């Protein structure tokens, strides 16, 4: 816990001059804002531990305010708000397994699966030979996300997306 926010240490360098005081120079990511900051601690200094755990959960459904998740083996359900879900919302498909970070048992951040398979609900028919756009066109997915896909992709097809980049990976055939 730093400045009342839960943070994760992403780098920790132990620094000690030959005969001097030891320090830990750490890079921490604020789990609420995602910001990364540098901090210096005297070695041995302590900070309050944040009650943060990461759990695999199945995405169930969303209503107007919340996205609902469930732990598969205990059936425990959690409701995540807009802040926690953030950009992940556009990749959520019912029954997909997501990684949910809990802080004091409430969802803090949602990480979608690295790859998701989603159905195209709307895209213009591709015009053969139209390469002015680099051979790609926009397509709207069932989750609401808009991604760029190759010209040969048609309405109703299922495609595989890399959620870390938002990029098209391949066509998924039944």
């Amino acid at each position, binding site marked *: 816990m730093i400045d009342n926010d839960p943070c994760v240490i992403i780098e*920790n*360098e*132990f*620094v*000690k*001059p*030959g*005969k*001097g*005081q*030891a*320090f830990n*120079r750490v890079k921490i990511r604020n789990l609420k804002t995602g910001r990364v*900051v*540098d*901090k*210096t*601690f*005297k*070695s*041995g*200094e302590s900070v309050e531990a944040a009650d943060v755990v990461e759990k695999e959960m199945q995405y169930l459904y969303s209503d107007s305010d919340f996205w609902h998740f469930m732990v598969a083996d205990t059936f425990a359900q959690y409701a995540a708000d807009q802040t926690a879900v953030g950009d992940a919302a556009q990749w959520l498909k019912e029954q997909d397994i997501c990684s949910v970070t809990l802080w004091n048992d409430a969802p803090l951040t949602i990480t979608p699966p690295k790859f998701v398979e989603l159905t195209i609900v709307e895209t213009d028919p591709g015009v053969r030979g139209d390469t002015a756009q680099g051979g790609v066109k926009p397509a709207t997915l069932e989750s609401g996300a808009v991604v760029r896909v190759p010209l040969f992709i048609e309405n109703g097809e299922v495609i595989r997306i890399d959620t870390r980049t938002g990029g098209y990976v391949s066509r998924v055939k039944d």
Partner: protein
Amino acid sequence: MLAAIRQFFAERQVLEVETPILSRSASTDAHLEPVATSDGLYLHTSPEHAMKRLLAAGFGDIYQICKAFRAGEEGRLHNPEFTMLEWYRVGFDDQALLSEVEELLALLLKPVVLQEPERLSYAEALSTHAGVAVDSRPSELVECLRDHGVHVPGYDGLPETEARSLFVDLVMSAIVAPCLGNGRLSSVYDYPPDQAALARITDDPTPLARRFETWFSGVELANGFDELTDASEQASRFETDLERRRRLGRRTPPVDALLIDALSAGLPASAGVAFGLDRVLMLSLQGQSLNDVLHFPISRA
């Protein structure tokens, strides 16, 4: 590398010695934590005390390659168990010994050291690389750290002298050290007296500790002293160290009375230096971390 070191010293007629790793007393250095055993003994943090007793006994020039232990030191450049090379030259002062250090390091780091070594005084190192004077007040040091984007740890309740030494250490390790040893060996000499450890302090109007450290690629490799030979001064430094340890809430290990006895019997004027050999090996192989050269770092030991 070990063979090259042994040959280097054989050519100079420096005798290889072995001293106990397990001891009844320990270093009183405020920032060193010895590993204590269950029967009240300590693993040495360096062979310094025992080797000085050999010097006082008239052994002359000596060197040792041994394991040393420092509790709680673990990181990219630290492992609680490490290999140390320590040697003493009778009749040398710190600058003469530094020349020998530069020769040996140039030999061991031959493929990676490109230019002639440089030497800077501690004050020059701070002013050149951090733009701050060595006698700055704590507030000025804090400002310097903030200007360089270094987050400053809390220091509430620390006496001014402790706060000052804390920030000088941080300026040195966070701002200055990364600039040192860029393609060549950089050595810093003439330390502030509060960082003298076991070095002789000059009688000048502004006293300086005859101590040096050598860096390569921002990594500190060697720490040497023109050795303190005065027994009563040594005894009083042990006491000051212990007081400082109590103030910092650290354990106070038994003082090495045998070293004081040896100094009273007479330690010849000499200079001594210690190397972290794991770091030298790491740099010679252009590694980034001690884990690159340790088979089993402490997390896997």
